[in-house]
């Protein structure tokens, strides 16, 4: 590891009451922290952005610093669905199915213009944004985004994961959201 960097943002100790000899914190926060640093992506790479994702995995950007280098091609094991590239209407149901197969908690990043909104491809065959089939947590603009931007998107998801309540996934709001996408 290069020695020059000693000021990396390490994980901060969770807020809690630290007194003499004891340290109490909310359990949820610990789990939130754990989740934050262990987001295993499912790279749903269909086109150009997938190539930039390769760069993100590569040595120069190194997504593993965030604990996310284990790509889980099996949806059961993945935490974030990274949709990278154009999703055609033919592909839409597949995205939805993959999302349905993922276990909670799950997050979705729409990387790049095509996945987020259809981008330049405003055509009869392209789905105009994957938020039409699955709920999206974070959008990353760019066509394709630089690896920095993909990492930015990942960090936004980390923020979400860190602050999310363990019970959010059972909340009526969340169920209503899923119901609006006709999932489950």
């Amino acid at each position, binding site marked *: 590891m290069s020695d020059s960097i000693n000021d990396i943002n390490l994980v901060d100790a969770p807020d809690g009451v630290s007194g003499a000899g004891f340290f109490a914190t909310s359990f949820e926060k610990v789990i939130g922290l754990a989740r934050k640093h262990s987001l295993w992506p499912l790279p749903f790479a269909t086109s150009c952005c997938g190539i930039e994702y390769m760069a993100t995995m590569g040595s120069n950007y190194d997504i593993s610093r965030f604990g996310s280098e284990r790509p889980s091609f099996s949806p059961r094991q993945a935490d974030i669905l990274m949709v990278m590239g154009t999703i055609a*209407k*033919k592909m839409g149901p597949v995205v939805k199915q993959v999302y349905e197969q993922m276990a909670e908690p799950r997050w979705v990043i729409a990387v790049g213009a095509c996945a987020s909104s*259809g981008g330049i491809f*405003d*055509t*009869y*065959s*392209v789905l*105009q944004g994957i938020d039409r089939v699955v709920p999206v947590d974070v959008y990353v603009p760019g066509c394709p985004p630089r690896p920095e931007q993909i990492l930015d998107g990942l960090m936004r998801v980390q923020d979400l994961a860190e602050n999310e309540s363990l019970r959010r996934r059972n909340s009526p709001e969340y169920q209503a959201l899923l119901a609006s996408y006709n999932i489950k």
Partner: protein
Amino acid sequence: MELTNENVLGKIISKFGEDNVRDAFNPDGIMTLTTNRETIIDLIQYLYDDEELQIRFLTTLCGIHFPHQKDKELCVMYQLHSLRHNFRIRLKVFFPIGDPVMPTLTNIYATSNWMERETFDFYGIIFTGHPNLTRILNIDEMEYHPMLKQYPLEDLTREDKIDTFFGR
């Protein structure tokens, strides 16, 4: 023999006659001929078999739609290449949109399989004798052939677009 557009054209016309091979012109160095449905397969077979020409490589095949040409609305363009002589030739067949039928080329070139499927998908041209003429790129449920000029490009479900400034 050095293949030139003139002597190849001469060969073809002497074989198939002036009626079947028309409108030879040369827009970009590649000789372009127009022929008809009945001749096209024989012509390509002839070009393939002829030991002198050895035009044995199908570069590409595509459909074109000319809605303003009466009874010649649809066109299929074949572009062939003789790797031996580095000679390219382009063949066109026009036919009315009411009768979008073409013979298949798959018996000569395996590669034309998907190209013909793509052409069918885009233009609805039916290649008789094709082993599996189904849509290839678009979803099966699609009801029209999108490359025909009358159909719009845009996804009609898109809401966030304002057309004022795009000059169209």
